[in-house]
């Protein structure tokens, strides 16, 4: 186990890590607001909106992410007539699948956060003349995020690990390069390196969420 071998395998794996990190950020940035939108829809007074949100959440949480990825990448293009318009690139298909799936989980986490907020916060906002939008943005959202943060951190860490599912739609990522190297060289080291990369990424994430929790604490 010499250093030059380590460098040789780490290069492509770090390249793979770029795909994972890219997917992570795209997914987080889109699915958080999308999830909150679904939370609001699920609480809407307008029944069809509620219905759409609840079915979406049920399907996305009730089926494997792997199936959803395969469905989007391999399944959609073979639908008669409209299938030809639903052909996505590998990475794009993965982004769509991950974003929709995580939005459903985030929607449920936010719902839990909203449940924890006292009715009095809404009443105080109302008598102080805040509109519903102002109340949501200035009063409810910050309190909801504080409650939701630990669960969000949990999901974010799961997301980092789930990026290994890129493998299923043949986007080369960390695990792909590790597996190739292990088969080729009959050496366990690439798996160890892969694990190390995931641990480092999640270590950074854990620290970041600790900071966020500090920022949002109001004790």
């Amino acid at each position, binding site marked *: 186990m010499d250093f030059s071998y380590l460098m040789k395998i780490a290069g492509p794996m770090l390249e793979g890590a770029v795909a994972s990190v890219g997917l992570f950020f795209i997914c987080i940035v889109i699915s958080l607001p999308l999830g909150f939108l679904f939370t609001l829809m699920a609480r809407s007074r307008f029944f069809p909106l509620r219905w759409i949100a609840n079915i979406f959440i049920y399907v996305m949480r009730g089926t494997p992410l792997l199936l959803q990825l395969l469905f989007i990448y391999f399944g959609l293009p073979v639908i008669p007539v409209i299938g030809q318009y639903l052909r996505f690139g590998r990475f794009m298909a993965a982004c769509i699948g991950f974003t929709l799936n995580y939005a459903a989980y985030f929607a449920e986490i936010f719902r839990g956060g909203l449940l924890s907020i*006292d009715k*009095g*916060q809404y*009443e*105080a906002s*109302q*008598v*102080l*003349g*805040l509109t519903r939008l*102002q109340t949501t943005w*200035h*009063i409810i959202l*910050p*309190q909801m995020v*504080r409650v939701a943060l630990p669960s969000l951190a949990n999901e974010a860490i799961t997301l980092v690990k789930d990026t290994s599912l890129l493998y299923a739609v043949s986007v080369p990522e960390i695990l792909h390069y590790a597996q190739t190297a292990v088969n080729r060289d009959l050496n366990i080291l690439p798996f160890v390196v892969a694990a190390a990369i995931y641990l480092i990424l999640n270590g950074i994430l854990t620290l970041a969420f600790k900071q966020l929790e500090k920022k*949002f604490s*109001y*004790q």
Partner: protein
Amino acid sequence: MALIQVEHVKKSFEKLQVLKDVSFSVNPGDVIAIIGSSGSGKSTLLRCLIHLENVDGGSITVGGKPMVEQGVYAPPAQIRQITAQMGMVFQHFHLFPHLNVEKNLTLPLHLHDKSLSKAECLQKCKELLQKVGLLEKLDALPAHLSGGQKQRVAIARALMLNPQIMLFDEPTSALDPELTAEVLFTMQQLAKEKMTMVVVTHEMEFAQRVANRVLFMDGGEIVEEGTPQQIFEHPQQARTQQFLRTALH
């Protein structure tokens, strides 16, 4: 002319009728204490005044403008305009826990009137905190205040929007006995400045000393109404007499 006119207001929760044909009026400068046992409908009545509850029937007019007429509500914009003349203080304060005292006071005013500068909002905030004796708590988070301090901040917050009428829903009921005095003192100061106040309270002494009119409610109706002297010293109704026997001892 009456500042608030309530006529034949009715309100039910499911099958339980909590307000049965309630009528009364509030004149400018009045300090009205609403007393009565739990479940008598007094809090619901107060909440109807500021549209936290919808009435099922009757009329409420504030400052000459009808908010609801014979069970039919005005358009939302008009309701907002009408309720904006009132400030409300809750039993459980309902300060915004994620904002410090300064932001609790300035945020609503800032959102309400974008033309005001930050400095103007802060100036007003400081004046009102001074008035309730909590200027030094400007940067504190609500979690770091005592119950009495929280309620005084809540009063200052309600005053930020220059209400003509202040509504208090059992403002001292959630406080330890030794903390009620500071809140009652603040309210007494307001009364001295001729603020029109409607106070739902269990503090009989406060009702006796500060109010100029007392309403006794029982079973969803106003059973008796009069000056503190009339109500506390010469109650006419049997129900009032019975309530006061238990409440005053």
